């Protein structure tokens, strides 16, 4: 069992949990992820590592409650324990494994869409600790969905915010903001890392391609084991089929077949929707439905 030491709500549905997992904490590097199984009968869900502390033996995860399993995890509080927690999975980001001279040549822009700010934070933090300054764009639909802004400002050189509805800072999408930074403000980048929803990454890559900035993306397809065993997470990169769990999760954004990846993400949509509905009804109708008897 893995104890939840801290829980912090970042928005209504996005939360951060600090989990006691000394072995994972010691081995983790930026870009990697964990698999969490909340309860004995739960599913194995790949989740983002948002921070780790080898000395304290803790790993932080950021989750958005979108389906049954993540909604259930959100009901867990500090002091509760989750059933299974395994990692770190996937390869660390190339940035922390490349030679130092090569890294020093990089002018890096991170582009975070929504929850994508979470996997980006440990990368920016690691780079700062290694003397590399970089810029970060955090974008979301609206102001209260922007997460980790203060934390990010502590480790990034510049943090730029965009909201689709203009409720906070730049009015527009992350791609519009990136375009403005490069074309109007004269910013020069030679490496981009875009992490967020699949559709956001697809558009981010279209933009960076136009601007000539090589871009790395982090994919989050459906997974079961996370160790290369099932092949559910296979993605097409250029003309090769790769397993995101062991070959990724980061790939050259210019080569990713996003349309296929998005289609594959919908494979269990019906079952996921049904499970979510059942869970929500269980939560709201604790006394067995509304009383009309229609659920009997």
């Amino acid at each position, binding site marked *: 069992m893995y104890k939840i030491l801290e829980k912090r709500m970042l928005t209504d549905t996005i939360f951060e949990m600090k989990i006691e997992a000394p*072995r994972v904490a010691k081995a983790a590097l930026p870009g990697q992820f964990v698999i969490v199984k909340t309860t004995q009968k739960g599913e194995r869900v790949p989740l983002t590592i948002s921070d780790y502390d080898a000395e304290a033996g803790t790993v932080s995860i950021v989750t958005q409650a979108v389906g049954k*399993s993540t909604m259930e995890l959100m009901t867990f509080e500090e002091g509760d324990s989750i059933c299974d927690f395994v990692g770190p999975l996937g390869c660390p980001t190339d940035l922390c494994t490349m030679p130092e001279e090569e890294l020093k040549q990089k002018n890096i822009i991170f582009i975070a869409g929504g929850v994508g700010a979470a996997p980006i934070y440990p990368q920016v933090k690691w780079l700062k600790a290694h003397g590399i300054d970089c810029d970060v764009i955090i974008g979301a639909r609206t102001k209260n969905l922007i997460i980790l802004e203060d934390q990010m400002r502590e480790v990034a050189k510049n943090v730029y915010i965009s909201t689709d509805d203009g409720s906070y800072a730049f009015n527009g999408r992350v791609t519009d903001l990136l375009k403005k930074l490069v074309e109007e403000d004269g910013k020069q980048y030679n490496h981009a890392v875009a992490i967020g929803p699949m559709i956001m990454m697809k558009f981010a890559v279209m933009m960076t391609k136009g601007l000539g900035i090589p871009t790395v993306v982090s994919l989050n397809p459906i997974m079961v084991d996370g160790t290369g065993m099932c092949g559910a997470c296979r993605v097409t990169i250029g003309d090769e*089929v790769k397993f995101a769990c062991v070959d990724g999760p980061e790939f050259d954004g210019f080569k990713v077949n996003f349309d296929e990846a998005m289609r594959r993400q919908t494979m*269990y949509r019906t079952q996921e929707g049904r499970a979510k509905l059942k869970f929500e009804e269980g939560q709201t109708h604790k006394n067995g439905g509304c009383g009309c008897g229609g659920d009997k």
Partner: protein
Amino acid sequence: MANQINKVKVPVREQDPLLRAKNFDEVCLGYNEEEAVNEATRCLGCKKPLCVTGCPVNINIPEFIAHVKNKDFEGAAKEIAKFSSLPAVCGRVCPQETQCEGKCVVGNMGDAISIGKLERFVADWSRENNIDLSDRLADNGKKVAVIGAGPAGLTCAGDLAKKGYDVTIFEALHSPGGVLEYGIPEFRLPKEKVVAKEVENIKKLGVKIETNVIIGKTLTIDQLFDEEGFNAVFIGSGAGLPKFMGIPGEQANGVLSANEFLTRVNLMKAYDDDYDTPVSIGKKVAVIGGGNVAMDAARTALRLGSESHIVYRRALEQLPARQEEVHHAKEEGIVFDILTNPTEILVDENGNVCGMKCVKMELGEPDESGRRSPVVIEGSDFVMEADTVIMSLGTSPNPLISSNTPGLEVNKRRCIIAEEETGKTTRDGVYAGGDAVTGAATVILAMGAGKKAAAAIDEYLSK
């Protein structure tokens, strides 16, 4: 003497095929005491038993059968326990017809003794009667790490614990058992009743099992030696990487590996509504391949309510699966489309599988495996209807460990290089066995390798 022997084996009771095709309960019901004793009476108790030479872990078969004959079932269990830590598993999934039973001399004049069914009976009886088989020597203070809680790892760990070693098994998944847990279905190998209990018996020997630890990711082999104080390491990490065909359309929704399908159903229990993991299966399922895993996948799909086909490029008699499994599959209504090979997965406008383009095959000259190789019949293209395609083409070892362990060499198939008799690898103090070394094979061969490695590790650490 011999002409007094009943040439016909005591038949084993099975669930009715039409009934069992709709449930996940065990197909074979096993012998009761009377049936077991009757079958045991057929054994000649050979002075030079050939059956033992056919057993990868060399169980003293005539000896345990003699105990059964005398209704001393506890004695039989203790005899088997000297050689095997997983008898309830082996009695169910070993290919006895090519091993012990294949060598049985009674088999020359009639049915071979049903050694597997007798082993299963003894193991089940011993479990139901809570017989304590945890006999071990005093602690010797030496630590051995075992990677993977599958058949090879459990066997190696059990043998070393009996000799007094302090053994810890590191398992990547959340539940121990390896392929016994994620691969072989409930209807062939019950999880709670059999696998969990056998694992429990290994723990009773003092073996510790740490789940959720992936060696090569969470910890490295270097760390096991340098930081965790282990004196030797056994790698039994199996062959978990699924193969795909590389044909067009394979990325469609509805194409999955047998590993994924079986893991969802067996490990994650997707067939049970109480569990959260979903499994998506269509009305007509095509399982590509002809091994035991393909049979398991096809029979599982059938139980989930689908019309289920085995699509195999060679002929029926060349199926690599055990005859018993093929027989059971046929009884249950699996359709065998043999001498058929898919060339393309057809995909509808939503990206879902809607069929398979196939060609018919005929048998040509023998290939390097000695089997007549299948050759495409020109112009035989046709479309097979299917909305789910399960690829069961074999698996290869996972490179997570080998790629993170300096000094550990692998061959071109990514199998760890190890001596056959000892499991000794190219790195000092590191031993390996089972599918991680041989590529996908059987439970009992992995157990045999685990056993040999345990003996070699004992010798290495006793120097």
